[in-house]
């Protein structure tokens, strides 16, 4: 009934005219859906949070990032895997923090004020990632992202989803599950 209200009865009062209005309306709706679909197909956009680790810039999808906090007070956990720096207290919950430098076999860095913990949620798990500094939030179209050529990826490096090329920058886009050794 509700739809009927939007149809104005034509002065002619002919049934054909009323029907024509219905058809017009339906066509507009169909067209709209088509436009949205096309948009999604053409420009997939990577919405990334980027951070610095050593000399490179890395990016992870913003949808898995919960928050970014200052890197203070990481309590070491004896016996934990090597790539785990320790645990932090995030509003009463104890969450593990992965040292991405250790994970990617980079040399240890001096502690600095710029260090941050990027808290991500994956597979119902909440983990922190210790990074040198957080750079920015950017959107890059999939067109400028190149998948890593198969032969360039050794088994250890399959945590890389692709490389985004922007002007003079290269952003290494990470596969989080693999980066954090979540299987």
């Amino acid at each position: 009934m509700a739809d009927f209200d939007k149809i104005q009865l034509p002065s002619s009062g002919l049934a054909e005219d009323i029907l024509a209005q219905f058809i017009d309306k339906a066509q507009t709706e169909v067209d709209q859906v088509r436009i949205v679909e096309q948009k999604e197909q053409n420009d997939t956009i990577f919405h990334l949070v980027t951070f610095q680790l050593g000399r490179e810039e890395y990016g992870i999808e913003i949808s898995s990032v919960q928050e970014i906090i200052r890197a203070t007070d990481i309590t070491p956990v004896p016996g934990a895997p090597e790539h785990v720096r320790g645990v932090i207290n995030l509003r009463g919950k104890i969450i593990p923090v992965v040292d991405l430098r250790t994970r990617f076999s980079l040399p240890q860095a001096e502690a600095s004020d710029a260090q941050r913990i990027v808290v991500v949620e994956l597979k119902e798990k909440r983990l922190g990632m210790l990074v040198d500094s957080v750079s920015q939030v950017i959107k890059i179209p999939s067109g400028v992202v190149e998948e890593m050529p198969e032969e360039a990826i050794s088994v250890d490096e399959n945590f890389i989803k692709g490389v985004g090329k922007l002007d003079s920058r290269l952003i290494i886009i990470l596969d989080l599950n693999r980066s954090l050794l979540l299987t």
Partner: protein
Amino acid sequence: MDGVIDVSLLIEEYLDDANGHVDAVEVAVMELEKRWNEGVMDDALLTLLLGNLHTLKGNSGMMGFTPVQQYIHRLESFLKGVQESAIPLSSGVFELFYSAVTALRSGFARIASDPKTTLDFSDELMSLELISYSQEMEGAEAGREEPAIKALSKAKVEELSYITQKSSTLKVSFEKLDELLNLVGELVIHRTSLVALEKRLQEKVSDRALLEAFNEASQLIGKSSTDLREAIMKARMLPIKSVFQRFQRLVRDHSQKSGKEILLRFEGEETELDKTVIDEIGEPLLHLIRNAVDHGIESVEERRRAGKASTGLLTLSACHESNHIVIAVEDDGRGMDPDRIRRSAVAKGLIAEDEAGVLSASEVLNLLFLPGFSTSSEVTETSGRGIGLDVVKKIVTSLNGMIDISSDPGRGTRFTIKLPLTLAIITALMVEVGGEIFAIPLSGVLESIRIQTDEIHEVGGTEVINLRDQLLPIRRLDGFYKLKKVEERDMEYVVVVGSGEKRGGLVVDRLLGQQEIVIKALDDYLGDLPGISGGTVLGDGSISMIVDISSILSGMKSVTKERTFVNSDKRSA
């Protein structure tokens, strides 16, 4: 309206509820049988029984489990016949209801694994028909002198009472309570920072009245949060009865099968303990009770020959003892023969013959907790073989508890399990090791001492100290956790800890005092953490690891210790 309601979401709830009703039915039937044996017919119990069946029938119908509904309907009308005195009670009737409980339970288990499964109760229905037929015949013969009409009208009134029953309880999922407890834990922590803040204020602010008002407010918050926490802890408490009751059936069935006469008695079954403990205690108790039923209590003839009452007595008891709960399983059976255990241990290669000779009687009993020890050579359906006391001990130890055994040959055996009241909040001794703060559960701390560094000796690769003429193996926690070593000292702090029958000393850098801590499980992302059982958030928001005493002790060399400390004086903590 949509004609079909998707009930699949409700199945879990239905099953949970249904199993509760079946448990209640079982309890009521057992009680009814007991009363009946004493010559009393308990109408109230019958009403209760009918109430449970009726609800279950209704729910099953709603969920579309028609066979369940029909079966229960038949049970119900049969029971109504009993209530209206048309059908006399007999042991056959009880047997029928026990098998009904079993059938329903296994039916629900099948629904749980596959909700689409079709249940078939035709066998049960058949036996129900048979017995109601024969009982009715009997009833008809036994006499109609009783004015049936009077009983009928009375029954009609009572029959409806269960429908109007009001419930004063509320089902809340455990996770919700757990979350509440977490939040209160946070509150307690924040309140600690309030105290720290107050100290700083005292230095800066000179307005005494203001300081006092602040102090009062902070005190009140402290009191309220403590009360709140206690109230929530209470809400998590359940009487141990619910665990004890599960064994009624096991013992009853077993005594019938084996021809032994066993009376299961409860003491202190109203004792309440935290759900975390209730959940874990069932399995160790099951092993102990199976043991008692199979090996402890003798057959009727054997008991008569020994001049004992023909009915064996199995007592399950529970009581509070300061911060612990003590649960005991005691039988008046044949007891344990130390010599036989000794021989068996030697034969199994668990200890050397000369070692066995010098063990005291109670030390010998402790051999039973060694893995792979089982005194009985027979394999029975109830207790199986091989699994048993070592498993029991492992579970109890993992709960920060202790287990003791005492036995009097010919008179019986008693197992005593001592557990902390809750597994969520513990009092801990806070210590500093390698610059980090660790929490050692106080339940496992026997004492803390200060010794000269040169009192530490190395014996066969293990560091030991001589504590009141007993050798105590020690472990340096900084080394164990691979933390940075603090420089050499003249004096060392040693925290003497115990877990089960094991004792050991943990060398720490500093003692920081006692504190109540909320245990938080660590994410399994961290993998297996030897020597760490969890984490906790301290008052200042920092995290400290909780020391897993039993895992550290089990890694220690124990050849001498096992012998020397088996009987060392009981904990004084």
